[in-house]
């Protein structure tokens, strides 16, 4: 089915938010699930985690960072335009229950997918601590939204331009795990793979269960192709249907990083071509 863009907002230099008219998916989706969209007939199938939904209005919010041709093209669409295809909700929902204190960690654009999980954890009655981080102040997104669904929040920047100076993993260790002031029952982390890996290294040391949401390369996202396969606890799992969330202490992050690099050359070729065409005003 196609989906109309109702609203568009730029959240930071390269991060955009789209509100889509998608009543069927909005009604069904649960925290942690994603959609797959296609912009045009020659386009890729792009998986994106659902950042928010309003079942009453029938809207779905997606937030994405421009990393290549397809996301660049997506960022150029305007309110009133339509996506050619939108399918979902895909993947398993987050397992949400009251377990005590939950730390929700979002790195970069990863704050967007961690937001609905934070909200669900809060609604389930947990004490929710949020840690959101980015390279610098300008790249921090959704601070107010995260604040509204958290009991405590820490904002980190790699360059110290805002909040805690350092990585999210350092903030978690220094402020909570090392002090032992409050027992952390669970950590949920979404962000770039190196960030999730560093965070899992820390929480493993303190034996804190950690869930990560993986964004591997996908094609159909219905379990049909296996492009997204990842090794978890020595077993091959499909991120699209078995995930996207897994026990972070069991994930083979090295393999995941390698697999995310399969098409780097083609992606660059495609993006460069697109950018050149844009400059020449030809369209791609």
């Amino acid at each position, binding site marked *: *089915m196609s989906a109309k863009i109702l609203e568009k907002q730029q959240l930071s230099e390269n991060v955009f938010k789209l509100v889509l008219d998608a009543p*069927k*998916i909005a009604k*069904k989706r649960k925290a942690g699930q994603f959609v797959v969209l*296609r912009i045009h007939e*020659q*386009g*890729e*199938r792009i998986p994106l985690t659902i950042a928010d939904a309003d079942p009453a209005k029938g809207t779905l919010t997606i937030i994405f960072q421009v990393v290549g*041709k*397809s996301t660049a093209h997506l960022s150029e669409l305007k309110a009133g335009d339509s996506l*050619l*295809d*939108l*399918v*979902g*909700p*895909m993947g398993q929902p987050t397992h949400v229950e009251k377990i005590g204190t939950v730390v929700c960690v979002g790195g970069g654009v990863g704050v967007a997918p961690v937001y609905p999980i934070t909200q669900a954890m809060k609604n389930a009655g947990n004490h929710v601590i949020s840690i959101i981080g980015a390279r610098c102040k300008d790249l921090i997104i959704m601070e107010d939204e995260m604040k509204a669904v958290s009991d405590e929040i820490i904002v980190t920047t790699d360059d110290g331009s805002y909040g805690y100076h350092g990585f999210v993993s350092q903030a978690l260790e220094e402020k909570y795990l090392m002090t032992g002031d409050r027992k952390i029952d669970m950590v949920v982390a979404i962000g770039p793979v190196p960030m999730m890996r560093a965070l899992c290294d820390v929480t493993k040391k303190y034996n804190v269960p950690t869930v990560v949401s993986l964004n591997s390369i996908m*094609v*159909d996202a*219905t*379990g*049909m*192709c*296996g*492009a997204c*396969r*990842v*090794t978890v606890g020595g077993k*091959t799992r499909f991120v699209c*249907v078995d995930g996207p969330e897994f026990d972070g202490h069991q994930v083979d992050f090295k*393999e995941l*990083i*390698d*697999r995310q*690099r*399969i*098409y780097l050359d*083609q*992606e660059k*070729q*495609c993006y460069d*071509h697109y950018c050149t065409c844009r400059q020449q005003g030809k369209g791609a």
Partner: protein
Amino acid sequence: MEMKERLKIPRQPMPEQDPQVRKRNFDEVPLGYTPEFAKAEALRCIQCKKPECVEGCPVEVDIPGFIALIAEGKFIEAARKIKQTNALPAVCGRVCPQEVQCEIRCVRGKKAEPVAIGRLERFVADYERAAGEVSIPKIENKTGKKIAVVGSGPSGLTVAGDLVQMGHDVTIFEALHAAGGVLVYGIPEFRLPKAIVAAEVDYLKKLGVKIETSNVIGKVATVDELFAEGYDAVFLGTGAGLPSFMNIPGENLNGVYSANEYLTRSNLMKAYRFPEYDTPIVRGRNVAVIGGGNVAMDSARTAMRLGADHVYLVYRRSRQEMPARIEEIHHAEEEGIELHLLTNPIRYIGNGKGWVTGIECLQMELGEPDDSGRRRPVPIKGSEFIKDVDTVVVAIGAGSNPLVQSTTPGLDTNKWNYIIADEETGQTSREGVFAGGDIVTGAATVILAMGAGRKAARAMHKYVMSK
């Protein structure tokens, strides 16, 4: 023409693209009969009183009937004759294994070669489409019954086509963005042009079938929710869409694909036209394809067309046991695919940066027959060898996708998670729910799925009309 003269006509050859040319393009390999070829071939049919060929056809096409019309030059009428029992003749004429179905039963085959039924079917379907004279039968009596069909592959399209012609209101739900199932994501352009699938799907739409693409049943709606929405019966034709891997070391290295992924990228996403299309694919120079079925042949021939220097087809049994159609093996060999028979991969070797660079194999020999009746391949000790490859496509079969089964309480499945359905009716353990095709039988052929769809359609009609 006298029977004696008719018996003298040789089986008409199928004009084909030259192997050296076609191995580097994605255009269709067989070019199709001309009207002259078709008429000559049709005259070879001796119009048996008790045609055995029809018994060999899972959807019981009136084979002598349509062939007689071709002999008279009535090509459009011949196409319509087929369409009385087969909604997808252009597809079936291309991908059906006629040599083990209708043509193997042809009496002409006993002394000479059988009538080329498949080529004739293809000819009239193409002729009708090219002439723009595709007729849309008028559907007289609307029943007011709503039918949901889950999956738009061969079984789903057949069920939908049959039921809409019986006057029901039919909606197909397809998970992907294009209708056709394996016909669009699996079978390559050079064997089944996607424009032909689109035309056959379009024909169903003209008959009144509604097609909702990008709708994953089991996710956006469950089977129970379809009933709650007012559907009177549901057909599940979700296919065998779960790729099998061998679980050997190195299978997750970059450059190692499941056949489903490799073919989906190339066919559905048109990665062979990258960067005109955005979806990329690894264009390997030395490609190993693991398996001996039609999907393995499709993968190997796709790899060759993507520019490979060498494509090795690695199969653990001998040529005799290969499940692929003989014609496909023949085409593959003509195009330079190198068969490594009685060879089994045991691990993939990486370059330390996550990319596959080699495949280690064992030589096999045939032992005693196994459960399938085929002689079991047994490893020869100490026969390990390594071949340099930069791409691997694992084409060793597919399992059942659990999305629908896991969200439909009371739907019985077997130990492989295929849906249990009555062979004659497609009836499942859930009232009003029918199933057919690969999701019941495991990965099989297009025409068998269509046959199951035909039977299920009859049973579903009976079911909704008695409600």
